């Protein structure tokens, strides 16, 4: 037990050292993708908690992300920046003058998304599961429509440009510490949560709601808990994404965004933290690498005209193949454990 904890601690430290090394050695573009990976780890884990561990079919992630992203942006931008953005219709006074440090804004972003989660969850989580998918999907679209039409708060379809860089100092080296630092924190929280008595209750609900209730588990309360925690982290992820890209607008939070995260979770294994983490990194990198598919491709002197959206087609095909041949994703519900490595070593020592 203690040995494993030490190993975990060592790997966390090693990972942090790695972050610094990468920070120095990777170019701006690579670093950006790497940061994106971290953000997608957060997003995938938060969706996996709701969909994978409790077995709720929620499709509202983009909505929670939008709430987080807008909250954080509006709280961190300077008065001048806001005035510059809101040229069609001035920003409401109570928002114009607030400016808080990034860490505080990020927490508020998470809390706002969590409140949105509670508001949508309270009526819907009492109903049968199939309503949840529709209600959350609707919620996510409604958020988008609201944000498009509240010109004096969100700047509507124009979106908000010039979000400050992630961090306190505004320096680029700080970004990765936040993205992957929070990703790491999310992983730790999820592992601790899933391995607690509450985590077992979540899994019981996923396995069999009727039996779980007969075992004294308050279904509504536990579903709400998971839903609110998931929304909180989705809000944080959305905020980080907005600040990483530097621009947000309602179109960014289209349902496709939720689809991408669902894809990551399914590929990694619904109900596996390890799977979500690996899958988030692989898919994010692959999405970037496959960007070439959307542009013109030259093969042996012939030019194939680029088809925008081609990489999404490739990904959808990939997803279908995984579903067909690997029903339970990369990891199923399995998790990484030090035993894998320790036992392998023991075996080789014996032989």
């Amino acid at each position, binding site marked *: 037990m203690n040995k494993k904890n030490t190993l975990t601690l060592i790997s966390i430290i090693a990972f942090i050292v790695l972050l610094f090394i990468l920070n120095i050695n990777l170019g701006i573009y690579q670093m950006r993708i790497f940061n994106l990976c971290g953000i997608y780890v957060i997003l995938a884990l938060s969706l996996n908690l709701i969909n994978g561990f409790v077995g709720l079919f929620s499709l509202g992630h983009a909505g929670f992300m939008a709430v987080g992203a807008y909250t954080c942006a509006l709280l961190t931008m300077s008065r001048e920046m806001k005035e510059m953005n809101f040229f069609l219709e001035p920003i409401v006074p109570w928002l114009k003058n607030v400016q808080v440090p990034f860490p505080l804004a990020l927490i508020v972003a998470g809390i706002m998304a969590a409140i949105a989660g509670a508001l949508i969850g309270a009526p819907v989580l009492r109903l049968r599961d199939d309503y949840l998918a529709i209600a959350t999907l609707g919620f996510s679209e409604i958020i988008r429509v609201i944000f498009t039409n509240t010109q004096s708060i969100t700047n509507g379809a124009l979106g908000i440009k010039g979000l400050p860089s992630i961090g306190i100092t505004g320096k680029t080296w700080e970004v990765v510490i936040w993205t992957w630092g929070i990703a790491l924190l999310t992983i730790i*929280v999820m592992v*601790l*949560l899933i391995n*607690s*008595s*509450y985590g*077992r*209750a979540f*899994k*019981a609900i996923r*396995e*069999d709601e*009727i*039996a*779980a*209730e*007969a*075992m*004294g*588990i*308050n*279904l509504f309360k536990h579903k709400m*808990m998971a839903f609110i925690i998931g929304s909180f982290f989705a809000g944080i992820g959305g905020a980080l994404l907005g600040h990483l890209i530097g621009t947000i607008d309602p179109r960014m939070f289209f349902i496709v965004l939720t689809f991408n995260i669902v894809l990551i979770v399914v590929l990694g294994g619904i109900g596996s933290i390890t799977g979500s983490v690996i899958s988030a990194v692989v898919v994010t990198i692959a999405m970037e690498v496959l960007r070439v598919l959307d542009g013109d491709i030259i093969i042996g002197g012939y030019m194939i005209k680029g088809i925008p959206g081609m990489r999404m087609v490739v990904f959808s095909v990939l997803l279908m193949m995984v579903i067909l041949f690997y029903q339970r994703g990369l990891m199923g*519900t399995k998790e990484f454990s030090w035993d894998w490595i320790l036992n392998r070593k023991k075996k080789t020592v014996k032989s």
Partner: protein
Amino acid sequence: MTVLRTDKITMKFGGITAVSQFDMKIDKNEIIGLIGPNGAGKTTCFNMITGVYIPTEGKIYFEDKNITGIKTHEITKLGIARTFQNIRLFKELSVLDNVLIANHMRLGSNLFSSVIKTPDYRKKEKKITDKSISLLKDVGLDNIMYEKSSSLPYGKQRRLEIARALATDPKLLILDEPAAGMNPQESLELMDFIREIRDRFDITILMIEHHMQVVMGVCERIYVLDHGIMIADGTPTEIQNNPKVIEAYLGVE
């Protein structure tokens, strides 16, 4: 002392009356049988007692408290635990986890202290783990407690379901066809097992069972339902000689 009393409970589904004006009274430490042909309304009775369905009419009292309309999980907390006709284990989870989950409602740790694993939480977690392992020992499943529950043979899955129900610390245990799918040898063992848990855990047992040898062998009193109506109640000998019961079972007009 009366543990459970139903007062003219009726359950209607649209036009069908699944259970009609059913009266039942169970005293502490009794082992009671509920029998009847297929579709007689037995499981529906269990579902009303455990709050899955709210009776269309009538009241249910548990230890003199009116529990009609109370939520399932609250009824479990009050002390009624059940098993299901078609085994409902948490399939992907281990045998031990199945039993641990039954301890969750009485854990008394909030989400935050469970996640950060406060010393108090660790102490409670250790306590429920020890308790669960000892329960699994009692029912003879401790040697396979880390196996996935769905990998167990049928008889052991039934046994685990009973163990899981016992882990909620019930006062009344209700079993829906515990001998279903068991071979004669397993059925005999089950009879001893039921008596044994009644004594060891000082509980009251109500069971639905088609297997007559088991019902007559272990139950002290029996209620018979047919088409939702109670047609007889009494000791096994009384029931065996009751013409109405024989008629219901043989379908004699």
